[in-house]
């Protein structure tokens, strides 16, 4: 098979805007280079084929598989699984407990003690400077004496890479699993902000705590990019023993405002 430029294939409204020319890639293996155990024997296409061709063929194959005697029966989804915790559960307390289970350091405060509590957390973490998303809700942290670096105009990756800590709010928190959800709202910011610095302070208000995963899903907007955080980063890949802190913030503090 010879490679040839795709100029005769280019469509006026090119569905692949990032390609300047479609190269037909020869993937019949050079001698000695094996394919994988699950790759089907070479089919007589040149790759990539016209997009409509592959799509049509796949959909046709699926329809054939689901037709005639092989037609699947009707499916009913029973949604009577539990949606909420029991009435009267102390959701804030449960959240604090469960988040701590996964090594998030959770401290409670109220409007009078929040500044002092924050000061304590920052001292414990040895952080004197925090990246802050461009919203206004976290401006009170200036009272802790920490230097606040707003992401406005947006910080570059190089600038973020040297920052020791970041503070964000959250979209909501899930008590049952000890999870914080960020959804790029004004006091959470771009995803990269809470990713590169090694210390993440998250401010969670009591009214943001829901009981269960179904409650969280019902409240979240799927069109916003979301990051669900349950403790600092961890791995169990080495002999299945859990190790904290691979990539992403290795220290997570949660300031729970009641």
């Amino acid at each position, binding site marked *: 098979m010879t490679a040839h430029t795709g100029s005769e294939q280019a469509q006026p409204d090119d*569905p692949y805007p*990032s390609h*300047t020319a479609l*190269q037909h*890639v020869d993937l019949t293996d050079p001698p000695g*280079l094996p*394919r*994988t155990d*699950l*790759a*089907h024997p070479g*089919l007589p296409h040149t*790759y*990539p084929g016209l*997009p409509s061709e*592959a799509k049509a063929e*796949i959909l046709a*194959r*699926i329809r*054939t*598989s*689901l037709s005639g005697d*092989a037609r*699947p029966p009707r*499916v009913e*989804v*029973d949604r*009577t*699984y*539990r949606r909420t915790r029991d009435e009267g559960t102390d959701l804030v307390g449960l959240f604090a407990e*469960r988040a701590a289970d996964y090594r998030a350091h959770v401290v409670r405060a109220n409007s009078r003690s929040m500044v002092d509590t924050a000061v304590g957390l920052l001292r414990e973490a040895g952080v004197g400077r925090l990246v802050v998303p461009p919203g206004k809700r976290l401006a009170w942290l200036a009272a802790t004496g920490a230097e606040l670096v707003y992401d406005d105009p947006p910080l570059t990756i190089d600038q973020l890479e040297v920052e020791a800590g970041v503070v964000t709010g959250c979209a909501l928190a899930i008590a049952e699993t000890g999870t914080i959800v960020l959804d*790029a709202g004004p006091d959470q910011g*771009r*995803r*990269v902000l809470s*990713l590169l610095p090694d210390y993440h302070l998250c401010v969670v208000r009591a009214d943001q705590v829901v009981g269960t995963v179904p409650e969280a*899903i*019902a409240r979240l907007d*799927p*069109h*916003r*990019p*979301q*990051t*669900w*955080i*349950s403790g600092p*980063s*961890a*791995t*169990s*890949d*080495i*002999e*299945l*023993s859990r*190790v904290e*802190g691979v*990539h*992403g913030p290795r220290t997570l503090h949660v300031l729970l405002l009641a």
Partner: protein
Amino acid sequence: MTTVRPEPTFLGMPPFPEAARTALANSQLRTNMRNATHTIRAKRAEVVEEVPDWEKLRLAGAAIKDEVLAHLPRYLEQLEESVTAAGGTVHWARDAAEANAIVVDIARGHATDEVVKIKSMTTQEIGLNNALAAAGIHAWETDLAELIVQLGHDLPSHILVPAIHRNRGEIRDIFRSEMGHAGRPAPDDLSDRPTDLAEAARRHLREKFLRAKVAVSGANFAVADTGTVCVVESEGNGRMCLTLPDVLVTVMGIEKLLPTWRDMEVFLQLLPRSSTGERMNPYTSMWTGVTEDDGPRVFHLILLDNGRSDVLADPEGRQALRCIRCSACLNVCPVYERVGGHAYGSVYPGPIGAILTPQLRGINQHEVDEQTASLPYASTLCGACFEVCPVRIDIPAILTRQRAQLVDLGRGPARRGEKAAMKAAEWALAEPWRLGLAQHAASFSRHFVGRKGRIGKVPRLLAGPFAGWTASRDTPAAPSESFRSWFKRTDGGLSEGDPAAAGPPEGLLEER
């Protein structure tokens, strides 16, 4: 063009019995596997115990996945629409080669000779790394276990913890000797403490995350109605790859869909508890298309068939496509525990691999090779896998079905012997007098065989396919007369005086 070393594949692995024998002889592997699987079994059991409606969640999970499969064309088209509306580009790949070509094309289009990867079994299935290598493009694995496997020029042995067959000493050695070739070297005095190993990985990979232009991921779920794609992880390498590079390419099997956003509420409960035995994994990322000023500027979603439409054709086998790759079945399987993943000779090992791999290789449509034919027999049919499967895949039923398929295709393991034995049984059982004859012959044999009441090891020449069985088990010798004969002779035990005293002949009812 840089030369990139190709990675090993599972091609050419021997059939399961042979591979298992080799694995069983490896006591280090057996120790690692035993510790690992027992630990994670306990963790899973504990967190599942906490959930009072676990069975309802399983039933809902199975039903939602069945719904997706039943109307797959509609949901796929809906997904394409919603992803495109959100600024992503959707590609369709009929097979591995087509998917690989699309990824290579995209990488070339951005003039890069490296990509960073989040762990993805789908990309392993299609051999993406080798396709990129052939095009002179490095594919840097960033998941710690995949990094260990890649640096060690090894094959993964588990869906979730691919380096489970490596202990900390081995990992340290691999890091020390190989990290320098791939980037930032490991410190000379690197210890084997997991904390230090993780730190070495963090430093080694950091520079790659920060400079890579293109990332490749798989997907745990994609929501058809909103176009939202979801990646579940623990270490943060996923977040790095999904957020920092300009271009994100996600390769996803066509069965990984969910109909609506709401369905995530079921699966985000089923998956973490089943896979890592946690209430929730550390990081889950969800995104829809492209978001301005947040994450990649360009998003490509590749929908992969590669045999899934063939799996779909079998009404019983298709439930294997419900699989959400949690690996709970691997962790409870007594066979997997003892032999590890390599013995299955495929990207997908363990119980799910035993039913999925043969189907992806076409067992529902045609004959398969000897290695594939050995996979449905890699099981004791104990059913533990079915019990823990979060989407209720009836693995034992499919295994039995595939064995039947193989026998029908003439590919059962003891082909001729099995056929002959079945024919003989068919003959003997067809008429009462024939059965009587067989029983008399058996009783008569007692004069020669098993005179002490038991038959021990029988030489292969006489026993044929049963030789393996008799090598480790005793068989009771045939009684001196059959029950039917005794019953007839003594009129049901009545004519021999007190029936309790007389009883059936010696050897007929074994005392244990």
